[in-house]
């Protein structure tokens, strides 16, 4: 796997497992370094060097983990959806494996958002949990992650699993959006609206803004890093199974 490859002529060629391994191997250290830097600086800045909020007190510091993890959790599902579509349409095995690799990361992020939110809710709303639409749709998202992972785990044949989980991911996405609207209809919530929008009026005050952005970058980096590592693992495992199957044949 170490010899030189011809230059890729199209973006899709990165979906070749070998090229993916080469490219991701090259990328990994940079992503790791960037992630560590962003996370450490962002969290340290946020935790040690930002003032308390006049209403929320020191709990405002939870925002530096809560918001990034929530955002990554949602976008991880989006990434799985895209990867599933690529697999179904262009049949690139690596994208199916990337979707598989993303699920546990997304689920963990969802769990982090839920846990930090719950911990934050106790002082702010006086309760760990309320059936607020945003909170609830996160719980539902968590359920989707669980079902998706369970389906991957239950099917033995790799290609069948890839196909079926892709179908589930697409149908599930539609239902996730539906659930979100159903939930908004069902109960009006406690949770604050968007505070990180581009139009500055609604944004959190500037003291919190920059460290939050850094943390966000850190979490995204963490996500990318783990996707790379886990997809590489999946590619290797896949190759190993293929080799073993071939041995069986001969």
């Amino acid at each position, binding site marked *: 796997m170490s010899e030189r490859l011809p230059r890729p002529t199209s973006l899709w060629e990165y979906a070749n497992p070998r090229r993916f391994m080469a490219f991701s191997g090259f990328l990994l250290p940079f992503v790791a370094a960037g992630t560590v830097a962003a996370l450490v600086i962002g969290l340290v800045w946020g935790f040690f060097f930002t003032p308390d909020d006049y209403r929320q007190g020191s709990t405002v510091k939870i925002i530096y983990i809560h918001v990034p993890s929530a955002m990554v959790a949602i976008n991880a599902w989006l990434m799985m959806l895209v990867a599933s579509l690529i697999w179904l349409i262009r049949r690139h095995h690596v994208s199916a494996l990337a979707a598989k690799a993303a699920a546990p990361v997304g689920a963990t992020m969802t769990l982090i958002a839920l846990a930090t939110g719950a911990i934050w809710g106790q002082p702010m709303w006086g309760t760990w949990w309320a059936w607020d639409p945003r909170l609830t749709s996160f719980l539902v998202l968590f359920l989707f992650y669980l079902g998706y992972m369970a389906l991957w785990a239950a099917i033995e044949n790799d290609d069948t699993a890839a196909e079926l989980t892709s179908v589930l991911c697409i149908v599930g996405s539609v239902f996730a959006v539906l659930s979100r609207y159903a939930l908004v209809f069902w109960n009006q919530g406690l949770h604050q609206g968007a505070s990180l929008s581009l139009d500055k009026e609604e944004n959190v005050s500037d003291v919190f803004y920059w460290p939050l952005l850094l943390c966000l970058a850190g979490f995204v980096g963490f996500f990318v890093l783990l996707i790379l590592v886990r997809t590489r693992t999946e*590619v290797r495992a896949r190759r190993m199974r293929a*080799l073993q*199957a071939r041995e069986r044949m001969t």
Partner: protein
Amino acid sequence: MELIVSDLAVVRGGMRVLEGVNFRVSSGTALVLRGPNGIGKTTLLRTLAGLQLADEGAVAPGPEAMAYASHADGNKGTLSVSENLEFWASLHGVDDISVALREFNMEALEARPAGSLSAGQKRRLGLARMAVTGRRIWLFDEPTVSLDVDSVALFADAVRRHLGQGGLAVIATHIDLGLEGEVLQLGPFKAEAPEDHHEDFHEAFL
């Protein structure tokens, strides 16, 4: 009418098992597939029947001309023998099940629930289903498992009659059916383990 298989490659569990399979079976003849366990007989038949896609090559005519009898018979234990047959017949737009019952000597069992049949009787019911599909090409996967000698003869007769009416049949089996017809040994078509082409890695991880 002719069944033409050209340059067919079939996959199972993500691996090619057979490749370069070429044969023709013409109206009125039967082809017997032979080969050791695991060579890919079942896989080949499933590909012919259109249940899985060919990795390469072509089969003509398409699946709509084929009737496939797999290991499993697909009959419902709580329905009677004739109800089972009638169901398949009406799915295929065939009206009459009495011929099928007669050919496979199931007339006495007609009203029995299929679940109470012995292994061999169940098998006969599964085979009788082929006669109500109204299709020209019959594909059998080890049709004689758990049949006794008389029933094997009965089966051979039914196939012969089908051939006589211009049908054709492809039968995978380990035993001798007493059917005249060509024999195809699948051994020589066993797929080569792919070499370590670096280009191949991108699709099959090999």
